């Protein structure tokens, strides 16, 4: 059972990681990267690393997209 969960997590990470690279628009990329981070957290959780999974959630799904989005808003504002 746990092998199945780990396999699902690995496939999720591989697919969403590829999707991050293939997404060309930075705004969409920020969201896709968030889903990638969530997938990583799920992978850590499936391997029973709860602490690492929590750290991954807060960094990958909260801190990183926020900073990317705010930086992009700044760049876009300056261009106007």
């Amino acid at each position, binding site marked *: 059972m746990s092998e199945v969960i780990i396999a699902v997590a690995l496939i999720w990470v591989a697919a969403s990681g590829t999707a991050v690279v293939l997404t060309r628009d930075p705004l969409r990329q920020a969201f896709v990267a968030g889903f990638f981070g969530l997938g990583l957290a799920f992978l850590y959780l499936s391997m029973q690393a709860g602490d690492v*999974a929590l750290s991954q959630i807060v960094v990958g799904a909260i801190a990183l997209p*926020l900073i990317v989005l705010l930086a992009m808003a700044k760049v876009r504002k300056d261009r106007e």
Partner: protein
Amino acid sequence: MSRRARLMFFAVAAAALAVTLGVGLAGLPSFGSQVSAYARMLNEVSGRQRHVTDVVSAITFDYRGIDTLFEEFILLGAVTGISVLLRPLSDETRQLPEDKAPDRGIPPPSPAVWLLAVFLSSLLVLTGLETVTHGTLTPGGGFQGGVILASALYVVYLGTNYRTVERYQPDALLESSDGVGAFGYVFIGLLGLMAGDVFLTNVVGLGVTGNPISGGIIPLLNLTVGLEVAGGFAILASEFLDQTAVIRTKTGPR
């Protein structure tokens, strides 16, 4: 560099990477193999030695507590650096965007968004406090809880507007919580020296395993890290937000 030379360069670099990566991957323990001797030993002794149920907490805040101290100062340094870097420069000014249609008010966020923000921000504060204070018992701890606490502030921005956040955001409190958290860690480390032992020795009573207050200095260090991270990430977000919302290039003659 010509296309040919670039391709040559790439081929050499790719071959070198493939060899190093191959050798490295071949040396990895096989998937699902047993945990290392070090991990087995800590799983065995940490419960008895430190009275905690989350071994990871015992490792990060006790067995290798000095590493965590340096990591904490990396974050402090990063936040300080961001604050310096994102200050208004000499050719920039802080002002809200000019209102081009003063007769029309800014529509408030929809009731649904507002309700979600009220609900979510209180929930985030609660979850953050829970994560910080239960670091010795369950996965989580100061770092994770701190970021969750800071994110409650972002949600307030989501549900209101920049002016409200600017008005109610306790800047001095955030900055002091960042500093107090970082140096609180050092202070707790010094307690060990004062007790006549080495830096960061677990000198406080260990308590009963499974109680929220157990593990000696581990929950205290969790609290200091939580303070530092919550303040640090809130400052980080507000610096970026300032850049986006109010800091703009000065117009007119300089």
